[in-house]
């Protein structure tokens, strides 16, 4: 009876989901242990969490294509995997928050849903790169080794920026560091961030694609990819800070820009190193 149910396909799926749970915990645990993330359940408006959940689903779809929860790579299978990845995010974060005592009998229903919806995002991102984390075969990653493509690279970059930016973006530190900055510090941050983007993109190009980014053939692509990746990192940083209520219409322009620059140092790292993490 048991052998009838446990077909090779079911076993493969079960193994993929188990990898997804562990991958989700690896990426999501820092966020699950961050109190500002817990507070997000009652001080972040539902509208912002909704926007985050919707955007995250798009990122999950991109990740299913290049890494993913499940090795099957048809369009329908990738949509199913994105749904299950978020499902894993919801269930895993609910269990961990319950075990941590963050969810209790005195937590109101709306707070529970918002906390789980929020924490489910980094866990689902982790579940969606599980195949890469655990070295499971996936066709698209292998295919990507042979081609340098701008949009997939940026898509993966946004996912990487979200993975690294999520935990830091929720905390007060980007706001506090942002408040300490002068224009000179801010300029220094931009220089460091751009240097990191160029340096890591160069390393990724050499390692993954086997190309010399300084070769005339690739120089344009390399510079374009680096620039677009940094722009994406800045946008993800701004979005994170807006989601967590650090910047808004009542924030001055200079403090808002400073906070974005601080967080973008982290998101730029995530965005450029994403190909090492995801593929």
């Amino acid at each position, binding site marked *: 009876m048991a052998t009838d149910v446990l077909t090779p396909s079911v076993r493969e799926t079960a193994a993929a989901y188990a990898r997804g749970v562990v991958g989700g915990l690896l990426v999501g645990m820092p966020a699950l242990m961050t109190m500002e993330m817990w*507070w997000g359940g009652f001080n972040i*408006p*539902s509208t912002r969490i909704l926007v985050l959940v919707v955007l995250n689903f798009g990122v999950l779809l991109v990740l299913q294509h290049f890494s993913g929860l499940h090795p*099957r790579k048809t369009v329908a299978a990738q949509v199913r995997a994105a749904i299950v990845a978020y499902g*894993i995010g919801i269930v895993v974060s609910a269990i961990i928050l319950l075990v941590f005592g963050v969810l209790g009998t005195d937590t109101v229903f*709306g707070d529970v849903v918002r906390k789980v*919806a929020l924490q489910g995002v980094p866990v689902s991102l982790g579940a969606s790169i599980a195949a890469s984390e655990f070295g499971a075969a996936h*066709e698209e990653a292998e295919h990507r080794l042979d081609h340098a493509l701008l949009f997939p690279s940026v898509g993966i970059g946004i996912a990487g920026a979200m993975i690294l930016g999520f935990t830091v973006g929720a905390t007060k530190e980007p706001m506090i560091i942002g408040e300490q900055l002068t224009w000179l510090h801010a300029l220094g941050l931009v220089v460091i961030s751009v240097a990191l983007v160029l340096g890591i993109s160069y390393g990724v190009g050499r390692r993954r694609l086997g190309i010399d980014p300084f070769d005339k053939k690739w120089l344009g692509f390399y510079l374009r990819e680096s620039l677009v990746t940094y722009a994406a990192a800045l946008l993800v940083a701004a979005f994170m800070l807006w989601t967590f209520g650090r910047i808004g219409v009542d924030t001055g322009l200079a403090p808002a820009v400073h906070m974005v620059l601080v967080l973008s140092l982290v998101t730029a790292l995530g965005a450029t190193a994403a190909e090492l993490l995801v593929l």
Partner: protein
Amino acid sequence: MTESRRTRKARAPDALELTATWISGVLLVAIVGFLVWDARQPSRPPSFETVIESQEQRGSYVYVTVAVRNLGDAAARAVEVRVRPEGRDIGSEAHFTLDWVPGRSMRRGIAVLPQNIALGRLQAEVVGYAEP
């Protein structure tokens, strides 16, 4: 592309994959549905109700447990609570601060009063809070 990969692509989803997709889909739709509904609800600012739940003498002090309920929808940060005997002068009072009181939620704090104060009817009141 190898033959085995072509075969894998063409294969129908297994029972576990379908079951997990359905359960996850229901969870996702329920969460998105709640967030859409909640986003459309009016959000009332914090308003507080305080209840003195117990008084206990331990050593030289009296420990007064106060429950603070936020009747509004919005959360309040750094909620300052003052406890003092009714009719007493300001020197007899005790304070505590609650980090957060989420909307429609209750948090408890303990005020510590000196023993030499005759405990009549105590009163607890919220004297201020910060917006998140």
